[in-house]
């Protein structure tokens, strides 16, 4: 009950006209930069940070947080319409979102992702309100061995990401793992595969890789094949945006599962939304009775990752606000913003700055509702984007990708790398090599290696640490179960084929 009265105090804080205004500015700005390919929330938040120095801490935090989660709403729009992701986590939404769009179901896809975003966000906010301290303690108790085992599970589940040949999928995961090795080795400080290029010393930029493989490659593809995305001539009515009963059925549970996976990954410091969306997609495909429909416009293939995306960014606030342990670079920037105001997040924030804590939490929900109201009517407008002739559209998209990639590190080498990855991605597409497994290998590889080596240092080189720790053991057991099921399923499938009906 006390929680509820604190929450109502929070709403009082978050419903003042100023707070509403800054929440609105934050989430609208977030949606816009989310829609634009490449321009991410980190850059925007960093640019807006100095503005908040003169604001009240609550207002500043409401606005910055709004940019962060608002961006996740918008990021799938371009994935669905143009096959160009708005941000790295939304790359997975291309797989089924774009096919939906080509089937003339773009409006429905956007409607579903908006509702999924709202559900995922709300799910994580509820966790934040009622269980934040417990969950934060749980999340922080994950040690290197546990992280490693989670990554093993993620990588195993990801074997389903490839559509065509499993061998090609495996090759792409391996290439991703190798590309993840580029940069400074965290254990020894040595440079690996940097070829003397200083820009590679910190590794390949994830945004450059995702925008190249998915964005630039898609543009090249369209230009060479004259196969450009097009909207129907007729005006989109609200009716056409409404999902069919079958869509709702597919949506319901996949959205909840996505919210759960997203919240879990989001809470763990150092993981991030890209892993959350890829895991949610892989999970859906593994669970599905008809995995073959994935990649051809499956509703589950967009609702689960989209819910996971929003749940993960909202859940990332759990360790940040309650323990002062930011999960990623964006959270670290926000923490810096709070420190400037003399506010130190941590276990006592909830008591010493209760008004701030609950005000921000309440604003999350208000922001999510604003996003829902803002995004649903925009769907028709976004779909109209497709009626712009492609010869005008693609230079604009390319331009935005360049700005977005450049703005991450203010580094022009990253822009060139994007082009290189774009050409690579173009050839991958041509020869049936899927890009999604590469991206996942790239994200997971360095985390796996780092945590594997750290786990061994911590255990004095005893491999037993991976089964001695209950969390790690549980995830390894899940991996084993997953493998057994995959093989059995495969065996039954081949049996069926071997014995044709008489």
């Amino acid at each position, binding site marked *: 009950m006390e929680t509820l009265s604190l929450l109502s105090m929070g709403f009082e804080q978050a419903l003042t006209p100023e707070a509403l205004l800054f929440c609105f500015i934050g989430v609208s*700005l977030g949606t816009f930069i989310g829609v634009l390919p490449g*321009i991410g929330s980190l850059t925007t938040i960093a640019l807006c940070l*100095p503005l908040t120095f003169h604001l009240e801490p609550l207002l500043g935090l409401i606005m910055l947080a709004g940019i962060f989660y608002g961006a996740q709403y918008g990021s799938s729009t371009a994935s669905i319409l143009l096959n160009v992701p708005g941000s790295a986590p939304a790359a997975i939404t291309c797989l089924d979102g774009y096919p939906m769009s080509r089937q003339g179901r773009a409006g429905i896809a956007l409607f579903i992702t908006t509702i999924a975003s709202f559900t995922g966000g709300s799910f994580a906010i509820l966790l934040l309100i009622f269980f934040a301290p417990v969950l934060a303690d749980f999340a*922080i108790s994950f040690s290197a061995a546990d992280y490693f085992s989670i990554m093993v599970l993620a990588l195993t589940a990801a074997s389903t990401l490839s559509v065509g040949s499993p061998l090609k999928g495996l090759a792409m995961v391996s290439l991703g793992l190798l590309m993840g090795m580029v940069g400074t080795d965290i254990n020894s400080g040595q440079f690996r595969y940097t070829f003397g290029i200083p820009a590679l*010393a910190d590794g390949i930029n994830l945004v450059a890789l995702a925008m190249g493989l998915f964005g630039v490659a898609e543009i090249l593809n369209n230009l060479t094949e004259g196969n450009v995305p097009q909207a129907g001539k007729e005006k989109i009515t609200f009716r056409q945006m409404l999902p069919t009963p079958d869509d709702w059925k597919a949506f319901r549970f996949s959205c909840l599962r996505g919210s759960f996976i997203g919240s879990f990954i989001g809470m763990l*410091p150092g993981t991030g939304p890209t892993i959350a969306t890829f895991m949610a997609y892989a999970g859906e495909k593994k669970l599905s009775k008809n995995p073959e429909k994935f990649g051809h416009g499956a509703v589950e293939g967009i609702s689960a990752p989209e819910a996971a995306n929003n749940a993960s960014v909202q859940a990332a606030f759990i360790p940040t606000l309650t323990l002062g342990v930011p999960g990623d670079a964006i959270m670290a920037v926000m923490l810096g913003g709070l420190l400037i105001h003399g506010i130190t*997040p*941590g276990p006592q924030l909830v008591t010493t700055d209760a008004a701030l804590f609950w005000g921000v939490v309440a604003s999350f929900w208000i922001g999510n509702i604003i996003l829902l109201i803002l995004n649903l009517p925009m769907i028709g407008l976004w779909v109209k984007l497709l009626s712009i002739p492609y010869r005008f559209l693609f230079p604009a998209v390319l331009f935005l990708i360049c700005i977005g990639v450049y*703005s991450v590190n203010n580094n022009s080498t990253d822009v060139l790398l994007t082009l290189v990855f774009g050409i690579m991605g173009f050839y991958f597409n041509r020869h049936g090599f899927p890009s999604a497994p590469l991206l996942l290998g790239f994200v997971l590889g360095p985390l796996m290696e780092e945590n594997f080596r750290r786990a061994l240092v911590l255990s004095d080189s005893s491999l037993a640490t991976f089964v001695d720790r209950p969390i790690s053991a549980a995830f390894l057991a899940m991996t084993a179960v997953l493998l057994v099921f995959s093989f059995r399923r495969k065996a039954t499938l081949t049996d069926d084929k071997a014995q044709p009906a008489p």
Partner: protein
Amino acid sequence: MITVLRLFTLMLLAAFMAGCNSEDNVSAGGVDAWPEKPVRVIIPFGPGGLADVTMRLAGEPLGELLGERLVMENRPGAGGVAATTTMLNADADGYTLIVLTNGTTIAESLFDDLPYNITEDLVPVSAVAWFDLVLLVNPDSGYKDLQALLEARGDNLRIATINPGSTQNLSAELFKSLASNSATIIPYRTTPDVLGALLRGEVDLAIDAYTALKGAIDNNQVTPIVVTGEVRNPAMPDIPTAVEAGITEFFVTGWNALYARKGTDPAIINRLNTNIASVLATDDIRTRFAELGVEAHANTPQEMQQRFLSDIEKWRRVIEAAGIDPL
């Protein structure tokens, strides 16, 4: 909606202008007229970090004194090499400055072939901020001071720091060589990871900047047992220095300083130096820095140069003693 669009356009413009920075020629106003346009300050770290926050805080009043804004430009990456390389492309006209840290003095010995030579390419303007590192333990461990920790953990001591080559990591190497030869130093990617490791109890000791972990210290999540400055830190008057705790020769004080291109008119350097000194002497800046656990303190270019050279020497010895090969 229109407001949002406008705001967005502004943001885009800002991002764009950050990209194409003014390499344009200086107008013929000369030294007396300097500055006639905003002064660019390159920060070799991402936004929100210590160097960024202190520079932005000091940059605002400094800009007011100079009559032109200071525009901060974050160029993180490759341990400052990316930022310094950018600096080399700027003219020696006082319109581009760079923030260097004691990390730069480490890089001098750590990297084999840097594309620049700081002492030949850049000149110091003034120090801006000084900060200590702290040695922290988990309060549940029960260790009240360093001696108790060393006695209990002795050969098995585990120290968490951020990545190899950082001030924190090399300070741990220095500590190891002076206090606990068989300790294991475990590198983590970020300061929050280091904090997490200490909270979980998977390491005995963490070494990091006070600023970065001030929140955790204030909340009693972690307990400081030693500060690395030569004198006690005013924010934690009860915590002994390393010397008081029995480890002589263990001093580490990090700094941030402004540098200009070599060949910049000494009159411009002078003007900047005096103005920085007066900004850093104001109560407002001193208290805001103190809240961050940082000391605001200017010095002369000569003093800065000496400090730079002596730090290069200090870290060169640590790197050699730790057996780290230059990259």
